[in-house]
């Protein structure tokens, strides 16, 4: 493309988008500062752009808290095992549905898509989990989330963009569908697998609702739920109950925000690496979807 002159329009766009970018970033930055400074620094400076005094007590509290470590452990298990389980179910279902000719395909598709729009609701789900005896087991945060139908359909669309000739030649060599899937399809589907894998990983990392409903034993709570408890504990401190944090003379907001950053750290680290993949992956899914 030829180099064009910067016009007022270009400058306006840059400013507008940069402003929106700052609106997204500032809350994170501000929260990060809150986690770093002692309480009196925070109350003295209404606008912090730079921490005038750094105090790692908030992080110390989080790192010394047993609950956070056990939350980290549970969430890691849920994420690793959960994503493997998610990917296994999603890949085989998506691949089978990307095939054109087999009896009952329309029926199976409708059977699946119906569940996107109609569900039993909270109570029947609650009772089902109870009757399956999954209560208070880590499995309850993994098993019920096997396939996200939307992600599965994106993956199916990706599979159907793979040239048929690739598959045909393997079949002539005598490979069956399962061998084709493992040897031909998966290697060429890396962007799609990375994208959907990341989506699932984030979902599992963010798990709290099933934990809140079904896990009684605090040592099996996920990281997000531990954080939620910490925050509401601090909140209820404002209405009279005195939790440990206050007794220890810690800066409550600082501890909360340190908890936030400890919780999102893996996402922050993983996200820029996979971002280039998922932009591509979701776009293919979106256009053909």
């Amino acid at each position, binding site marked *: 493309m030829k180099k064009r002159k910067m016009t007022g*329009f270009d400058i306006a766009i840059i400013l507008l988008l940069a402003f929106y970018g700052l609106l997204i970033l500032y809350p994170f930055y501000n929260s990060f500062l809150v986690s770093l400074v002692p309480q009196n620094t925070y109350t003295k400076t209404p606008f912090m752009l730079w921490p005038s005094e750094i105090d790692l007590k908030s992080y110390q509290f989080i790192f010394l808290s047993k609950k956070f470590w056990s939350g980290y452990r549970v969430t890691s298990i849920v994420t690793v095992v959960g994503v493997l389980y998610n990917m296994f179910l999603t890949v085989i279902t998506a691949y089978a549905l990307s095939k054109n000719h087999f009896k009952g395909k329309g029926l199976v598709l409708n059977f699946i898509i119906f569940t996107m729009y109609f569900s039993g*609701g909270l109570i029947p789900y609650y009772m089902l989990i109870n009757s399956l005896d999954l209560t208070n087991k880590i499995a309850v945060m993994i098993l019920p989330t096997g396939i996200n139908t939307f992600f599965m359909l994106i993956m199916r669309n990706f599979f159907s963009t793979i040239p048929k000739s690739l598959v045909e030649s393997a079949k002539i060599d005598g490979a069956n*569908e399962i061998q084709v899937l493992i040897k031909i399809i998966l290697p060429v589907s890396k962007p799609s697998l990375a994208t959907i894998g990341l989506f699932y990983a984030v979902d599992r990392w963010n798990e709290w609702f099933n934990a809140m409903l079904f896990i009684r034993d605090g040592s099996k709570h996920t990281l997000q739920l531990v954080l939620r408890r910490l925050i509401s504990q601090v909140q209820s401190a404002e209405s009279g109950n005195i939790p440990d944090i206050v007794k220890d003379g810690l800066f409550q907001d600082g501890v909360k925000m340190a908890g936030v950053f400890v919780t999102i750290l893996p996402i922050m680290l993983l996200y820029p690496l996979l971002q280039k993949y998922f932009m591509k992956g979701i776009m293919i899914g979106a256009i053909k979807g």
Partner: protein
Amino acid sequence: MRQEMGLRLKQHPHKKFVRDILRNKYIYLLLLPGILFYLLFAYGPMYGIILAFKDYTFKGGILGSPWVGLEKFRMLFVEPEFIQAFKNTIIISFGKIIFGFPIPILLAILLNELRFKKFKKTLQTVFTFPHFLSWIIISSIVLNIFGNLGAVNNLLSVLGLERQHFLADKQLFRPLLYITDIWKEAGWSSIIYLAAISGINPELYEAATIDGANRFQKIRYVTWPGMRSVAELLLLLSIGQVMNAGYGFDQVFNLYNPTVYEVGDIIDTFVYRITFQRPPDFGFSTAVGLFKSVINFGLLVTADRVAKALGQRGIF
């Protein structure tokens, strides 16, 4: 190929059916685990829907509890808290659509007009990031920013204005929901529009340039028509989410408090509260959930019909 078709025609239809099944046996094998998953965890709870027509007792269980017909549904319409939650759900849904729907479109158009590739990529990374965080995280940050000693109140006081209780103010709670929803999701939603824009034939832009179109005209007559059908489809899809207040459970549940129940309680949070925070009436809670699901499904089918009538591909 032709020969094979000839052979197939001669066969008995039964045999053909069996042969089809056998030929695709690996496909069925691959489908089996997924089907079992859906049967158990998606259709399993649907069986529990009969609770909406029963007076649930722990002793009787789902099957043994006595039938009460539509009594639980009648209870819905005399329960003021439900009526309030129903109203809130609809108001919040439409609020989210009205204020939130245009923003990703605008973002996509602006990003598309941005001429620095690197800057564009960095911005996209920033814009989409909040989408990947849970509402527990986002709400903690929101509580921090909008809290009494938070950045927003500090700004207000520096400007000589009064500090506000953003999270306990009935007037401000819904706008807070709209703003935080936009903040979290608009950047992510803009990706789908950018995908649509990238599918526009570049020759259209060249032709427009030759015709002497300026940039606004190109946006109006090339970019917008290219993304319009995606916008229409997404709008219709959001209609199907009206009773969920636009996937609002996590958001409302983590942001609200008893002071703002009156304006913030949606059907999903209402069901949660009546089931887990007071002596439960499982039949009634299930009836509320079913009422919601049926309306949602009806809206979605209607939206699909409208889409097809408008010449769109539809949702299903």
